[in-house]
């Protein structure tokens, strides 16, 4: 006999940091379907961007997401530099790389902590967040803020890293390395965690490719892609590092990828600090010509993509952002269904979802009071649009 029950989780659920609304359909213990409703943190950033000047947009996109708060500005300045073709000084490239990699370390440690929390393993949470403070301190020293660093600028960076800080950063990185060693031992060799995470929520390579998963979510499934290597920006082509991949695609593999990636990040930061030469940090461009530009950067969760269209004035005509969670979200359909309800939370957490990045759409002011669109609605809208364009271009109705 089958008993289908729908379990609502959210929108303001204590386990979640951000408001989102899951509906899990379960049959006994097994999840048979999942539906996600988001939109509780939609802030209309793309539209707000159109009313801000280019300088301010960098601050605005920084506030898309607090955890990737340097990946978004990074992609944003890359897009704007793509429009203007301005050269970025060497030292600025290294500083950008350092800030991006420090962010990756803090984000991965944060994830390890939250994953432990979701598993009911609060010791891991407290540890991970304790060692994350080292990175936050470095940020506070070199950028002035623990989060939302405000370092990026078109044509360079806003602040230089003073020489006095270098030994402190080096020592901080060594401390992080020791913490990572401990995590590698404590988390990866722990029999309980292995039993809990191995073989759970498997995303096969084929699924990862067909869903276009990004970042650690795809790399844990054996898809070898990383913007930092495939289309190097900042100083990633001047330092030695490896792209970490795993084959299994389960939650454990995702944890392994994140821990090993943090090691690479530490090594990148150290190399940058050593290679950095004295010099200017900013080429200080004064205006942005007309044109379109794209920029993409590898955030801790995957590729962020920014598009900007400038009409020669000081604010953009169109600004578009695509965050990695947008692509990683649908993989839930492949990973959660068929698993038990107790594993669902950790599988949902395994892609390190970031809703505040993803929430890009909401419908306001519709006559039928419907504020959420379903997949069918969207397909219909898309088909309607094709029809309209066809008619405009050819003067005929589409068959």
């Amino acid at each position, binding site marked *: 006999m089958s008993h289908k029950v729908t379990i609502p989780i959210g*929108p*303001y659920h*204590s*386990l979640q*940091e*951000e*408001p989102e609304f899951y509906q899990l359909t379960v049959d006994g213990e097994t999840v048979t379907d999942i539906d996600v409703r988001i*939109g*509780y*943190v*939609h*802030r*209309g*950033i793309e*539209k*707000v961007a159109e*009313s801000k000047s280019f300088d*301010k947009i960098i*601050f*605005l996109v920084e*506030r*898309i*997401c*607090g*955890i990737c*708060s340097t990946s978004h500005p990074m992609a944003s300045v890359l897009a704007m530099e793509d429009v203007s073709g301005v050269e970025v000084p060497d030292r600025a490239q290294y500083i950008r790389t350092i800030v991006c990699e420090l962010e990756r370390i803090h984000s991965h440690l*944060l994830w390890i*902590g939250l994953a432990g929390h979701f598993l009911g393993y609060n010791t891991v*949470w*407290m540890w991970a*967040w*304790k060692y994350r*403070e080292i990175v936050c301190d470095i940020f506070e020293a070199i950028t002035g803020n*623990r*989060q*939302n660093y405000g370092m990026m600028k078109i044509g360079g960076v806003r602040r230089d890293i003073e020489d006095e800080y270098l030994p402190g950063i080096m020592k901080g990185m060594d401390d992080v390395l020791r913490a990572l060693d401990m995590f590698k031992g404590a988390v990866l060799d722990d029999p309980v965690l292995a039993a809990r995470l191995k073989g759970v929520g498997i995303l096969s390579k084929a699924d990862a490719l067909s869903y276009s998963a990004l970042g650690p979510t795809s790399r844990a499934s054996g898809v070898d892609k990383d913007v930092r290597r495939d289309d190097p920006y900042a100083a990633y082509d001047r330092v030695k590092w490896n792209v970490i991949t795993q084959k299994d695609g389960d939650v454990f593999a995702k944890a392994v990828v994140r821990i090993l990636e943090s090691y690479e990040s530490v090594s990148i930061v150290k190399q940058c600090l050593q290679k950095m030469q004295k010099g200017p940090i900013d080429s200080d461009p004064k205006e942005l010509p007309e044109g379109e530009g794209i920029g993409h950067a590898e955030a801790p969760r995957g590729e962020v993509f920014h598009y900007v269209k400038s009409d020669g004035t000081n604010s953009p005509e169109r600004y578009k952002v695509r965050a990695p969670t947008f692509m990683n979200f649908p993989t839930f359909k492949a990973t959660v269904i068929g698993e038990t309800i107790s594993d669902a939370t950790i599988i949902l957490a395994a892609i390190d979802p*970031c809703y*505040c990045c993803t929430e890009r759409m*909401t419908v*306001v002011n519709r006559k039928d009071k419907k*504020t959420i669109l379903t997949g069918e609605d969207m397909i219909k809208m898309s088909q309607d649009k094709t029809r309209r364009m066809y008619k405009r271009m050819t003067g005929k109705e589409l068959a």
Partner: protein
Amino acid sequence: MSIKMKALLKSPWVFHLCSGSCNNCDIEILDCLTPRYDIERFGMLLVGSVRHADVLLCTGVVNKLGESRVKRVYQQAPKPCVVVAVGNCAASQHIYRGSYAVGKPLDEVIPVDVYIPGCPPKPEAIILGVVKLLEKLKKG
């Protein structure tokens, strides 16, 4: 001082309500719980249900979708309940003011007792804000 108030001041339980923040303020709130800041030494505890809460820590601009829900959450909290607006977003709508998705500011949706500015406010600032609030309540 009522017995309820006395109990509240002794160990205020906080509930964290995020409605359209960029996540940083939320992380800093969680950070307050971790070993370095450890607000549990003041008797504060992050609780899972709003029905157990004495203090609501609100972060983020309230967007149109969340507005009625934020109100509902506040109504569910047992009174007396003090509301703290953490971060510029909750205090003044920050950079999003004027956006089509953002409705009324938080203090027009629910009554706010304390504002903690900052983007994000440091954990020290959050702790200071809450402690100051408690002192004020103690004085009456």
